[in-house]
């Protein structure tokens, strides 16, 4: 359980980081290291070069600007879940961040790392899809903006190019909609077996569910959400049947059931969040 040998850079500026990424072959960015280092220790990931971005403080800011909340790639899960702007505008995201791993993992792990790693059971990719976020990808050639929905391809696969750095994610500030989040994990701190973000319009029944943990990537499905619990249950089940699940039949059935349970809880939380205001 030791990584192969690698060279290590700790750039002092974004430009320097992008240069290294452009020049070095088989280079990988390291942020919190909470997903990358285990993979390297198992030798499943074998980068020749590591580019440590922890010195780039400009990537660590959270700011609201022109109707969007811009979250720097280096923002740690533990900062995210407690940040006043996040708690105010994206309570479901804050709640989800609190479910990631354990305290020690959350103080190191970053939103950028979580999005690029793209574990299908991870909270933040799903939260970004649910909130229709935009990922800002920067390379020596310039900047590119990709909708979250288009960014995630499948199990640990995304649209990012080897020379690109994810610098920030932008979430439009919600208006007229509320969000709820719920998930089920075997033990507190584990990756979820299944979870859901539910979005409901403040007026009418329009809504959407973003599922994670069932298929290979977070899936957002828009639907009219019935006010009747039993019909909602059937809606969730029908929506889930459309997703590709795990191969094992019992496992797939189980994850879909948990996802449906989570969606109902998330729905209730979304509704309840309105009552508080």
């Amino acid at each position, binding site marked *: 359980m*030791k990584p192969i040998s690698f060279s290590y850079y700790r750039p002092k500026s974004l430009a320097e980081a992008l240069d290294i990424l452009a020049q070095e072959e088989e280079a990988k960015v390291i942020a919190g290291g909470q997903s990358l280092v285990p993979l390297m220790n198992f030798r499943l990931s074998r980068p020749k070069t590591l580019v440590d971005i922890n010195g780039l403080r400009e990537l660590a800011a959270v700011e609201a600007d022109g109707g969007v909340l811009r979250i720097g790639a280096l923002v740690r899960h533990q900062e995210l879940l407690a940040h006043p702007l996040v708690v105010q505008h994206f309570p479901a995201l804050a709640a989800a961040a609190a479910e990631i791993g354990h305290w020690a993992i959350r103080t190191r792990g970053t939103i950028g790392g979580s999005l690029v790693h793209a574990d299908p059971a991870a909270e933040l990719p799903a939260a970004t899809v649910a909130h229709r976020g935009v990922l800002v990808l920067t390379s020596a050639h310039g900047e590119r903006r990709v909708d979250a929905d288009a960014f995630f391809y499948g199990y640990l696969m995304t649209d990012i190019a080897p020379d690109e750095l994810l610098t920030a994610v932008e979430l439009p500030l919600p208006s007229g909609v509320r969000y709820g989040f719920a998930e089920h994990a075997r033990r*507190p*701190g584990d990756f979820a077996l299944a979870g859901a973000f539910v979005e409901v319009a403040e007026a009418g029944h329009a809504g959407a569910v973003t599922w994670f943990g069932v298929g290979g990537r977070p899936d957002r499905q828009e639907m009219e959400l019935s006010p009747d619990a039993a019909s909602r249950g059937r809606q969730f089940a029908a929506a889930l049947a459309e997703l590709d699940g795990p191969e094992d039949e*019992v496992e797939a*059935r189980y994850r879909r059931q948990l996802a449906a*349970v989570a969606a109902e809880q998330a729905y209730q939380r979304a509704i309840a969040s309105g009552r508080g205001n």
Partner: protein
Amino acid sequence: MMQGPLKPQFTGARVTRLEDARLLRGRGRYLDDIDVPGTLHVAFVRSNRPAARIVSIDVEEALAVPGVYTVWTAEDCGITMYTERYDVGQPVLAKDEVRFVGEAVAAVFAEDRYVAEDAAERVRVVYHPLPPVLGFDEALSDEGRRVHAHRANLFHHTEHQTEGFAEAFASAPHRAQATFVTHRQTGVPMEPRGCMAQLDAATGRLTVYVSHQSPHQFRSQLTELLQMPENQIRVIVPEVGGAFGIKAMLYPEYLVVADAARRLGRPVKWVSDRTESLLADAHARDNRHEVEVAFDEEGRILAVRDHVFGDTGAYPFLGFPGAVGEAGWATSMLTGPYKIPHVSITVDCVFSNKAPEGAYRGVGGPVGAQVQEGIVDLVARHLGKDAADVRRVNFIRDEDFPYQTATGNVYDPGSYAESMEQALALIDYERFRREQAELRRQGRYLGIGICTFVEPSAGAESEAGSTPYEAASIRIEPTGTVTAALGLGPSGQGHETTMAQLIADQLGVDVKDVVVMHGDTDSAPFGGGTGGSRSGTIGGGAALRASQEMRQRLMKLAAHLLEAAEEDVELVDGHAQVKGVPARAYSVRDLARIAYTDVARLPEGMQPGLEVVVRYQPPLSTTYSNGTHVALVEVDTQTGFVRVLDYVVVNDCGRLINPMIVEGQIHGGVAQGIGSAFLEELRYDDSGQLVTTSLMDYLLPAATDVPRMRVTHIETPSANVGGFKGMGEGSLIAAPPALAGAVSDALAPFGVFVTEIPVHPQQILEWVQGRVHSA
């Protein structure tokens, strides 16, 4: 004759563990902390096939990696761990054939572990795959391949039946049957296994450091397998971060390391990583019990038939093939605390292409208890009776002791019924039953599971070997402090504290003035080590006997100096004085000084110095501790998750040396029981690959899974010295059945009866939603 002090100050008290000052501050020195310049680090190339012929091994490319010293295969190190009884040997590096995924095939020696792993990747092994044998039925079938070509897979078969079983069984008014299964699990110490060896250039002696439970047994095994004289090997066991039985076994890696150190002339070190641990530490619990029970209207159990299948994996551990140990314990203790007059027991143990099975805390105990409590619950279900009532009908009562079980054990007195009644009172059983009914109407499913366990402890034989005694040496130093050494091999249990408590009370000194050493065969007297819940009882007995002997020496010396009769001298607060006359006293410090440096004042015939070595063999071949665990769980029928809401333990391990340490042992055992009942499973897929090779897949209970538990004590003393009974394993024996029983009870409205652990949440949903039926 050897009267104890009137008021023991330390024995029985909640003395804070002397070890904790270093352990909690991160100052313990473990095997991996030993860092000798020039050490070669080992990485093993392990088989990725469950069964295959080795066609060729090419090490050239590995040898070319800069920093690699050498690479060994079976050609270079031909040591075989051979078990005559089954005519099976395990080569320390696989020879000609591999028999499980994770078996060591080659060893790379390099300047550091990184380089060693780089080179290990470059060792090319060509395999010719063979069809793997992966379960009992396959191993036993005629078509099944032989794991060892020269012998049958069935390597251990026993039958035992009480006289009159057949009639008792046939004439019983009721019968029921169930098949109980425990899947593969293992003890997961926080500190993985490891070994480091070094030849002393000056003396030619070999020092072997190892994370192990039995230093002397380990030395004996090395002596034999390395063919070296015993006095040329020194075994040192540093701080051990958990052992749980798996560190009582002898593993191939240790022999490779020791052999390399002496032949390569360099210090050599190997520390297991977590994946290696899950692949190649002793596995355990892979058992199936096919059970039939015969009973009457009252729920009285008349006869039990049990056919046990045990899968020991590819090789027998030396002296302890796990499946045999497990089936032996499970069936020997099958009747638990109940008066069951008739049994019929058949045991079949097989080899398979899975990792070898060895000891894990409780050995066959948890599995036996699962059967023992399972049948009682089954009887209750069949008759529509309360599970506690059926236990009451069957308990062995006070007047029955000493009680001989149908399986041939003789139980010394215990408190079976009393422990259950106290535990039920603690959890308020009657009120729970009312609440349970009410909550069910609201769609909430709570249940209680009961396990009244009997734990055979301090036995003559255990996974720690067959040393039916323990040794203690005690030395009072010239300035009056006490140094003791024992042959034990603790791994966090707090022996340095408990032994010091016993010794301090006998010698009238402060517990902090007693240093207890262990783990170094150069200084510790030959002993059995730690395993089979023997240390407190047998080790404690030895400490007590040795300190009593020392006490006598002190009294004799004091009497002589005080010109008083020995009967008139007493030892209090570090002073020997004429009874009731503190003015006429010698401190222990004075006595020690005189014994070493003023020897003209010693009585006629007394040797200078203050040093004794005592070996103690308990009069009972086994002493049985007992207790009752009651688990209260809630099953979420939407998610299949089980939450433990409350947990009570009433424990009886005879005289308590330190209740806090006993409770700590229980807390840990219950935590492992939660893992065993709900989380932990070593899963092999259909092709024989272990798929749970990290702690992402082999799930351990986290702090949040373990409830606050309430523990109380009953003290029914043993006839052994001090009245102690062992208690290292009872908690892990009792917890899995209590928890599984609680799930059965919670889901009784769905007809669920749990017979297989661990219970997975998806399984629970399949039951609740009626897709599959439990037994």
